[in-house]
């Protein structure tokens, strides 16, 4: 097929009429789980400790069920394992099991006292890559509303643990007051919905009978693909235009030959998973700011403001939007709020692209869907869940290994979308429900802005299968991920520019 394309491209223009290739329409049904209230309704008066309480209340039944099943009948030296209600109820020498939240006490974690010392000394220490202390001063503790219990034992070295994940441990308390672990259990993957389940349910409510209408079933095509890209890193400089233009031409079907364009017609949606903009304005530290003489006119410093990145992103999106629907997640460098869940990027940033947004007051997602980070929704019936990379990058700092896929797998098995929030990851103080608790297992879990492309499939205890995708940064690798929506297989398309000159 590619050979035909090569011949087709390197020839004189002909008068042949080529048929127009249509793009497959996308079947899209997003969830609004991470939308926060707007304006006055968003309160920050509440305490962050409520998040831990809510997470524990939600996940404790699940983990206790698994633990009771596993340890209910165990007898060691004539003694059976007893379940204990609260963490502080464990008794010395008695074999028991208890469920609670993990807390990692690490001296190298960012500390509010560092900020205070910055006022007195010259500068703060640079941010660390890992919080693990080399001398083994880290302690793992189990916590619930009654108190904390220090954990020791061999299972801790093998398994990955971060602050905020819920687990059940079995063991006994020793003379020092530490709890020696023999075994531990996590909630594992939750229930996974069937493909097209949400559409079927709404069809049931609509039609009253069990089947969705013929018209809706006809809308489900075969052979669709979804493109996922992340870390475009637009910063308005000259350097990023060429690969970005190549990506644009590829998605529009203007590049390559006829057969490749047919394949590109199968791509029904583009998902941009964060970090589309690298910082356009330089961020000065407090000392540098006091030295600079800034003239503030109209409330902002016009010398420092650089509109080029957002304009370039807007042009990129507006060129693609007439042809392909786009879902845009904000990332760490994007103009959205700092704390998770990041709210959708404001349409004021996209003067040209917002014409493709839904009208105010309509419930249908528009052609251009600017969504929250993290995000979950149904694309072609499969439940997809993804984020811009911040939770995984934070978990990376807690553990010794480098395997991002292991961290993603553990995130799903712990059922926490962002376990380290609110400890080291900024987040909104939820009061009614911890939105990051994963209640329904997705079919695809993608994380953006990772160093390399990796993918695997994990399996759950009741037959759930999840495709994990670590999407690399486009700015550095030029790779874009194509996900086949029938088989959930993944392939990548690499865009590179020859640098021989």
């Amino acid at each position, binding site marked *: 097929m590619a050979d035909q394309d090569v011949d087709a491209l390197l020839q004189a223009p002909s008068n042949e009429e080529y048929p127009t290739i249509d793009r497959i329409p996308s079947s899209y049904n997003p969830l609004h789980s991470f939308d926060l209230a707007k304006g006055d309704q968003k*309160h920050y*008066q*509440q*305490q962050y*400790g*409520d998040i831990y*309480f*809510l997470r524990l*209340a*939600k996940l404790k*039944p699940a983990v206790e069920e698994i633990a009771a099943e596993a340890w209910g009948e165990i007898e060691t030296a004539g003694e059976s394992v007893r379940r204990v209600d609260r963490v502080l109820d464990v008794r010395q020498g008695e074999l028991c099991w208890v469920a609670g939240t993990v807390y990692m006490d690490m001296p190298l974690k960012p500390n509010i006292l560092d900020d205070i010392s910055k006022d007195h000394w010259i500068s703060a220490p640079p941010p660390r890559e890992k919080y693990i202390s080399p001398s083994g001063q880290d302690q793992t503790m189990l916590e619930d*509303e*009654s108190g904390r219990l220090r954990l020791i034992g061999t299972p801790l070295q093998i398994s990955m643990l971060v602050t905020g994940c819920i687990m059940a441990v079995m063991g006994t308390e020793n003379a020092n007051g530490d709890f020696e672990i023999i075994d531990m259990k996590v909630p594992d993957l939750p229930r996974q919905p069937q493909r097209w389940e949400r559409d079927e349910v*709404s069809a049931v*409510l*609509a*039609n009253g009978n069990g089947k969705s209408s013929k018209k809706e079933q006809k809308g489900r095509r075969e052979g669709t693909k979804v493109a996922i890209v992340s870390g475009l890193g637009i910063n308005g400089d000259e350097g990023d235009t060429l690969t970005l233009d190549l990506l644009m031409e590829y998605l529009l079907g203007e590049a390559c030959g006829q057969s490749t364009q047919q394949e590109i017609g199968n791509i029904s949606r583009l998902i941009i998973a964060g970090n589309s903009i690298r910082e356009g304005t330089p961020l000065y530290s407090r000392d540098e700011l006091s030295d600079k003489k800034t003239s503030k006119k109209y409330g902002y410093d016009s010398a420092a403001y650089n509109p080029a990145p957002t304009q370039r992103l807007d042009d990129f999106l507006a060129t693609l939007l007439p042809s392909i629907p786009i879902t845009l997640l904000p990332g760490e460098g994007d103009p959205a709020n700092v704390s998770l869940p990041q709210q959708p990027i404001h349409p004021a940033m996209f003067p040209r692209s917002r014409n493709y947004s839904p009208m105010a*007051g*309509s419930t249908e997602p528009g052609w251009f869907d600017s969504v929250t980070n993290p995000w979950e929704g149904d694309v072609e019936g499969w439940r997809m869940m993804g984020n811009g990379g911040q939770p995984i990058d934070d978990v990376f700092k807690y553990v010794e290994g480098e395997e991002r896929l292991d961290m993603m797998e553990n995130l799903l098995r712990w059922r926490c979308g962002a376990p380290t929030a609110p400890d080291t990851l900024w987040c909104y103080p939820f*009061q*009614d429900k911890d939105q990051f608790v994963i209640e329904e297992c997705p079919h695809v879990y993608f994380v953006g802005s990772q160093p390399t492309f990796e993918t695997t499939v994990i399996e759950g205890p009741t037959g759930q299968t999840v495709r994990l995708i670590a999407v690399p940064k486009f700015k550095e690798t030029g790779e874009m991920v194509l996900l086949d929506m029938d088989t959930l297989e993944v392939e990548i398309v690499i865009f590179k520019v020859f640098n021989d000159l």
Partner: protein
Amino acid sequence: MPSTRRKPAAQSARAQQTLAFGPNSNKVTKPSIPSTSKKVDKIKLEKAVTPEFSTPSPAPEDSQEAEVQAQIPESPRTLAIRNQGGAKQADGSAVEEKAKKIPETQIRKYWKGKEDERIAPRVHQQGLSVNEKILRHFDLSSQYGVSIPRMKRWKRADGLGLKPPIEVLAVLMREEGRGNGTAERAFMDGLLTSRLAVNE
């Protein structure tokens, strides 16, 4: 300089057109919507959003509503979803109704049960009513959460399935019915927080 006279100024002010925002305004900009229930308003909002090009515009609200209702069948999906929301509201108030019906004797029996669990009597609680004692005991039960107002905390614990005792809700409703606004937060909270903090 001749002294300025006030009367011509008043005359010229009257000559200008004035804007009237109060009840004297005789300009009708929007027809007033009779606010019967929240659900009715929702229906109207949805009708307004779905485009219907054949309805005439300057008709008064009631006949317009009747026409629109006749022409656009209510989307079943929105109907189903709205009904689910209504059911949930009904649930919440069902619990409150049940709590209102709980007699005083049951509350006293509950409290006696709690006191019998302890060997020694509680100290420094001589001046408090039974209601206040029950509420303080609920404050200290950290398995239902901490540091948010009591009613919210009870409802949240109920929603999470932690089964908080319904007698506490009965006491809270009685205090609310009696107009006692201080029952929402513990007495200590009132002493410790600053007066400028926004109450939830």
